[in-house]
């Protein structure tokens, strides 16, 4: 069957209709679990797995705040394998290259399901090769919170890597040798998982204002080490020196200025890609020059935003994920650096979420199509190289959503007739900025009216595609007759696209 975007989806799944279709739906909530019993402290994961009653076919969850430095997912899976528990579904908010040991467990049937928001690394390859027994489900950050609270993603045991835990069983990301800052993505897991295990390498007497409240915690398990601090720092937090990226960033800032989006009390979010970081740098200069203060910046927070906070350019940071150690430090020390949960960030059913309060968001793309649909989930061959993360959430919430991307990567045009996979629907994408031209979604007549009066190279999106074709030639159409291996779930729980095996 096909959904409203014309994408083929699994039979009997809930088809994507529109990005605001959720407004017609009621919020579904399963009961929050609190434990009256005191938290039990354990010395090994093996014990934790036994006490939590983990059995064949269950779902276990993890977060990705330790990013590529996380050791907990591998440790837990090793312990599960030793106990010969099988048929496990991994619900991890993201998976990184350092989780490659899971490849073996997928192949041998220990792991048969994965629900995640982002995959980067070898795991995507075995999934593309068809080794994962059940369909891979890819959510958005806000959508994962919705899936958990509604019971669509029922978690049997949450294993929460926690940088510091106190004697009552409260947890925080602020301290400890693997301090990573906010723990926003794991709050839904904490509240709704049937059993919760905090996995830590640092015990302390007491924690003031813990992110993880002991009322929701069943067990604390101490291990030698939960993370490698070097891997915690994201690899993509450098401002691009690439002149093409700089050019795109400059034009983006001209757009922001023309639309009067950089003004007193504005709010913004940007990805951590090189072009986005350059945009922030240019915006920062304008703010200094014109003495403008932003109300807030949100999302994954980088050191760059910390500088702006400390310079008094931004009132508050709403942080769901610290991208570097500077952000983690600031989160610990600065009261205006505020941690938020995944739900408060982007769950469509939560009230007053941060993404809905954004004046603009700057996002990347691996492909954009003539309907402005954006793919950040796969490459042009269909191999999974990422996932929505907060892409679809912020694109829907922000008043203006801007995609920044090179028109050509290697030789490949980024603008396609149809994207290989829809991550974010075109109706939520307003402007696409490339080094050779800017396309505005025809439905945003308000933006077109203002921007067509500027000297910016505004053109229809098909013209942008033609420019790319003139330079690189028209790429041969890829025939997808491969078998489905998973699907992309929109933030409201509907299915927006299918993921396929790759030869």
């Amino acid at each position, binding site marked *: 069957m096909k959904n409203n975007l014309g994408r083929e989806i699994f039979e009997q799944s809930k088809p994507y209709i529109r990005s605001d279709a959720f407004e017609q739906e009621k919020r579904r909530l399963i009961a929050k679990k609190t434990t009256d019993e005191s938290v039990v402290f354990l010395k090994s994961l093996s014990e934790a797995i036994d006490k939590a009653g983990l059995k064949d076919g269950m779902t276990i969850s993890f977060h990705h705040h330790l990013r590529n430095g996380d050791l907990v997912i591998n440790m837990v899976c090793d312990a599960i394998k030793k106990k010969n528990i099988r048929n496990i579904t991994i619900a991890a908010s993201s998976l990184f290259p350092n989780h490659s040991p899971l490849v073996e467990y997928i192949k041998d049937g220990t792991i048969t399901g994965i629900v995640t928001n982002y995959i980067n690394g070898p795991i995507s390859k075995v999934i593309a090769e068809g080794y994962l027994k059940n369909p891979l489900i890819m959510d958005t950050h806000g959508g994962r919170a919705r899936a958990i609270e509604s019971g669509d993603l029922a978690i049997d045991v949450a294993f929460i890597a926690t940088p510091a835990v106190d004697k009552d069983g409260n947890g925080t990301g602020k301290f400890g040798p693997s301090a990573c800052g906010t723990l926003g993505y794991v709050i839904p897991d904490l509240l709704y998982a049937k059993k919760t295990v905090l996995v830590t390498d640092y015990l302390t007497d007491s924690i003031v204002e813990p992110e993880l409240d002991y009322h929701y915690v069943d067990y604390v398990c101490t291990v030698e080490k939960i993370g490698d601090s070097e891997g915690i720092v994201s690899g993509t937090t450098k401002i691009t*020196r690439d*002149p093409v990226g700089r050019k795109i960033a400059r034009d983006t800032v001209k757009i922001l200025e023309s639309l009067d989006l950089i003004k007193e009390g504005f709010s913004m979010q940007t990805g951590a890609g090189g072009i986005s970081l350059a945009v922030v740098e240019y915006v920062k200069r304008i703010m200094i020059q014109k003495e403008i203060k932003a109300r807030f910046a949100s999302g994954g927070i980088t050191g760059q935003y910390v500088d702006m906070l400390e310079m008094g350019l931004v009132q508050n940071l709403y942080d769901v994920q610290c991208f570097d150690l500077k952000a983690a430090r600031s989160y610990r020390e600065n009261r205006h650096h505020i941690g938020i949960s995944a739900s408060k960030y982007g769950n469509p059913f939560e009230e007053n979420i941060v993404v809905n309060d954004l004046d603009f968001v700057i996002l990347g793309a691996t492909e954009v199509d003539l309907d402005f649909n954006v793919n950040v989930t796969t490459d042009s061959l269909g191999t999974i190289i990422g996932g929505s993360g907060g892409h679809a959430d912020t694109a829907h919430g922000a008043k203006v959503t801007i995609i920044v991307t090179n028109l050509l990567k290697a030789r490949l045009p980024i603008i396609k007739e149809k994207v290989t996979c829809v991550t974010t629907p075109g109706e939520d994408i307003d402007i696409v900025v490339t080094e*050779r031209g800017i396309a505005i979604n025809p439905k945003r007549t308000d933006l077109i009216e203002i921007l067509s009066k500027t*000297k910016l190279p505004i053109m229809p999106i098909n013209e942008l595609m033609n420019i790319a074709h003139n330079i690189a030639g028209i790429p041969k159409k890829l025939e997808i007759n491969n078998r489905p291996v998973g699907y992309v779930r929109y933030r409201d729980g509907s299915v927006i696209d299918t993921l396929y095996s790759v030869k």
Partner: protein
Amino acid sequence: MHRSYLFIPGNNPAMLQNADIFGADAVIFDLEDAVSITEKDSARQLLKAYFETLSNPGFSIYVRINALTSSLGVIDISMVMNEIIEGIVLPKATVQDIKMLSKLLDTFESARRIKKKTVIIPIIETAKAVFEIGQIAQLPRVSALLLGAEDLTRDMEIERTKNGLEIQYPRAKIAFACKAFEIEAIDTPFTDVTDEEGLEADTLFAKSMGMNAKSAIHPNQLETINRLFTPTDAQITEALRVVKADKEAQKVHRGVFSLDGKMIDKPVVERAEKLLEKARHYGLLGDTDEK
């Protein structure tokens, strides 16, 4: 009229394919220092093939050939010579070499039926060239002089510094010669591509000495260079007022008049007109502005 001249290595496909988007008023495709001696043939072939794909490039195209003291320079021209090329940038220029190049260009232009006159931009990078500058600036085809401070200071056996005090004399001399013979004075590149503040200071200093363009060795330098050589809004507004007041004054046949208590005479008006011409060139004047 150019503000910026960007050097792009002639053998670098990744740079070539984006040469048109960096915002350089002119691009100098380099066959000299940026290309190793074993890759000259490769670079020529690449530039030739690249030029053949261009039509209406939206920026001026120059090629820096190898010095004419070796046979390389002549082969460079014979390979890349194309209607689309605005001019040849000649390293280690001397009066004699420029004359020789001019003759070569005569030959190629007629043989390839190239209708336009290809200009020459000599690089002033030897003490001798600085000495001959008055002559060089007057030679036919010479449309601009480019200061090459790295080689020049080497030739002079003096230290090249960031503040550039050692090149004040050649900078001034080039600026004066160019002004005298109505050609463009292009400043030497600023070689620390990560130092944006240094670039800004160096460009402002060169501009204050009378240079009217600057060469760049990295696209990221263009933003600063273009900005500093473009008239500011305040300057344009002021110039428009001066010209308007002058028109009023002329109606009543007054040569000298005052604006905001300052005396305005012919040189001031001329300066304003020149600034407006620049502003017009860069599309900074709206139709209504001049009324």
